[in-house]
């Protein structure tokens, strides 16, 4: 029980930290990576709150596919920017 509440506290603090970093970072790519980490921590918090279904879904969609789509967007823009 103790361990759980410790994990919960750490997760909460990290969530806020990552959100602030993601919003305030100058480069888009770091912002996206922070968002991806944020999603992973959200997965952890879902698991703490006994929501395995949500955790699985968020893991695959939130931190997997959303990040991929973001990166593809960025990649395509970089290509256009190079020329």
């Amino acid at each position: 029980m103790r361990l759980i509440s410790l994990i919960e506290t750490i997760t909460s603090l990290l969530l806020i930290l990552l959100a602030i970093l993601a919003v305030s970072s100058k480069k888009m790519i770091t912002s996206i990576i922070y968002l991806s980490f944020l999603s992973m921590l959200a997965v952890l918090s879902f698991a703490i709150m006994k929501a395995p279904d949500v955790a699985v879904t968020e893991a695959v969609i939130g931190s997997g596919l959303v990040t991929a789509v973001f990166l593809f967007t960025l990649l395509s823009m970089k290509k256009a920017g190079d020329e």
Partner: protein
Amino acid sequence: MKRIAVIILLGVLGFFIFSGIYSNEAFTEFGNVDLNNRVSNKFITKSVTDENDIVEFGKSSNLETGSANYVTSIVVNYRSFDTLGEVTVLFISSLGVALLLGTLGGKLTHKYRANFILRVGAKTIFPLIALTGIYIFIHGHLTPGGGFPGGSMIASAVLLLYLADENFRAKMSSFKLAESFAGSLYVLIGIFGLLTSGYFLNNFMNTGVIGDLFSAGIIPIVYVLVGLKVGSELTGIITDFLKVEVDE
């Protein structure tokens, strides 16, 4: 300057929200929820239409919904109409992405060439990931997961193939066909329920014993359809995002 104004604004907003929520004693504190005050208590005992005292894993049979996973029973049975809407949201946004990006002819290429391990590994792992996805949505009524993560997993397997081989492109016409087929079948199952029992999306099949693979009536069927549909839609979105403008 603007930053400070926004922070003050949000501080006021936050105070407003926090005090509004937590000054209300009817808003139960985190962790102290009593399910008896909520509609969910009937979902736990599966007694919305039938009277039921207790549900036991592996013993109770022929309940109103036969899913061992309560979330699945809500998603695909009690609130199945929401899920139909949700599938539609994904359908319409993949369609929107296709309208915006689908006409582009170029291919997004990365600068580096995937190394040997990635290329061979991706081809080996692809069937495993796809199978896991299928496993997840077939067992949606027993274990965590279900159609949405299962379908997304299939899409991420395709994504892996894209990463390993930049010349690889999925055949979108067959995915489109699968998407159309799965969506239509979902609606047709609902209409079949409407014709036979008078309720749209009624669970018209025998729900069996809780915990069996072949149980829960239409839940596994619907979840397989949802999985297929989500998988093909997300594959479509990814494929469209890999297109770029053709250089002039």
